[in-house]
């Protein structure tokens, strides 16, 4: 039986030798940090003109993660392409070569999920801490420190959130067997909470359980609703996102195990 070590090594090389992996993870970093800095600057320069209630309920940590909401899109693309390139169009799909090399589907899939996690987690950790420090520097006197209330937990939460979103994307793409179909589901889903249902009164009670809306709750320090209106608590948010991720990954596995390649 082929062991996990060699299968993981192969998946790692596949990720490393695709330009799209590097582009997606670099842009996740750049978007998250860049937009965090812009948000910090904007609050800092307009501080005096902010309404009093905004100033009193101000959550400087959450401001640092404004960019994460967009950075997650790049992380999702990374997860989609890690699987989607196996099914890719133009005769470029490698799924048959992959399964001929590692015929046990669970092993192939497990190695793929681990490789995506192993690539995403360090980048997401770096991104979260860089976004935090850069935004706090931009906020100047209105910023906080890593020792501030809930700041470290929120920063780690951002890293975990981004990593789980990449794995969620891996599951959905395996389930749907292709990048195009996966993006057609994931992009609307990711805008549904923030742009769609999230603004409709009464639907917030439901939309806060969407994967991204639940996950972003981990990024808040005190649930004051800077990033989200009426969010779940951080622990509940993590639990809900974990459930989505697990469901997508299991669904992907069931399809991969059952279908002919």
């Amino acid at each position, binding site marked *: 039986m082929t062991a996990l070590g060699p*299968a993981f*090594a192969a998946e790692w*090389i596949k990720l490393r030798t*695709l330009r799209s992996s590097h582009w997606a993870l670099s842009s996740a970093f750049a978007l998250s940090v860049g937009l965090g800095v812009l948000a910090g600057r904007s609050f800092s320069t307009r501080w005096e003109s902010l309404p009093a209630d905004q100033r009193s309920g101000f959550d400087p940590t959450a401001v640092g993660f404004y960019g994460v909401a967009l950075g997650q899109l790049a992380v999702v693309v990374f997860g989609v392409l890690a699987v989607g390139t196996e099914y*890719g169009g133009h005769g470029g799909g*490698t799924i*048959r070569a992959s399964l*001929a*090399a590692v015929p046990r589907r669970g092993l192939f899939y497990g190695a793929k999920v681990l490789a995506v996690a192993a690539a995403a987690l360090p980048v997401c950790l770096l991104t979260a801490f860089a976004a935090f420090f850069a935004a706090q520097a931009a906020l100047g006197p209105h910023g906080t420190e890593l020792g501030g209330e809930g700041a470290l937990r929120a920063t780690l939460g951002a890293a975990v959130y981004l990593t789980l979103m990449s794995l969620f994307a891996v599951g959905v793409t395996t389930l749907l067997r292709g990048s195009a179909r996966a993006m057609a589901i994931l992009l609307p889903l990711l805008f549904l909470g923030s742009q769609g249902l999230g603004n409709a009164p009464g639907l917030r009670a439901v939309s806060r359980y969407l994967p991204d809306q639940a996950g972003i709750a981990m990024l808040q320090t005190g649930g004051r609703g800077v990033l989200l209106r009426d969010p779940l608590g951080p622990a509940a948010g993590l639990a809900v996102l974990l459930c989505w991720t697990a469901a997508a990954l299991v669904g992907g596995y069931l399809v991969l195990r059952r279908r*002919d390649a």
Partner: protein
Amino acid sequence: MIEVRDLTKRYGRKLAVDGLSFSVRPGRITGFLGPNGAGKSATLRMLLGLDRPTAGRALIDGRPYRELPDPLRRVGALVEPGGVHRGRRARHHLLWLARSNRIPAARVREVIELTGLGPAAGRRAGGFSLGMAQRLGIAAALLGDPPVLLFDEPVNGLDPEGVVWIRTLMRGLAAEGRTVFVSSHLMSEMALTADHLIVIGRGRLLADTAMADFVERHCGSFVRVRTPEPERLLDVLAGAGVTARTGADGALEIAGGDPAAVGELAAAHGLAVHEIGLRAAGLEEAFMRLTASAVEYSSGEEGR
């Protein structure tokens, strides 16, 4: 050694493979012949564990592919041209395959040399010509130095030079004692390459026979040989109990003969041979007749 027993595959309502049984032995090239859509690719995919048989077994060395430890060291396959991501460099494609089956990285360099991929190894596969993509696919198949090789339509779309290269390569692999199983829809290509022939139509076995027997049975094949000393060769052949006749242009023709035996006979008597080969007039027609009857038979049965 490849063994297929009562193999059946149904895709939805379409019966692609229908109770197929045959075995493929090492040390020779076995051609897997059938018109497009006869079930050749489906059979190969089941042999590789990519598709699950509806019924029956497809075994390699007595085991299903999925149970082989480090399968690339047991079986090398060219299933579709490339199967390579367009954005990945050829060398990296071979490297991940090698790693997955604990094949040393040095072997990647070896197969790059062996297939003449050399300068293209650092290029992204998306820019490859069909010929280069095919060479990369062959390099991947040879990576694990496997005793069993499966090639699905390896000469499709290749230029004549590439066709000759693959033919020579396959002969070499069979001569080393490996099992070489190659599918094609072209009888003429098989006649030049294969030692043994498995013919299917509509997912069913139509013939499982030595190439020479097939040729002999289905059309008047003959060995054609040209020599500066035709009289002496006629005597030598007569001495070996082989009757030959002189063709219109002075070449000798031996009905149903084996070119290797004739060549060896000539060599044993120190005779120079300028040209020798198996001529198979009407081979393609024989194949068409064989498969056409299968098509009629199947459709007639379904109509009932």
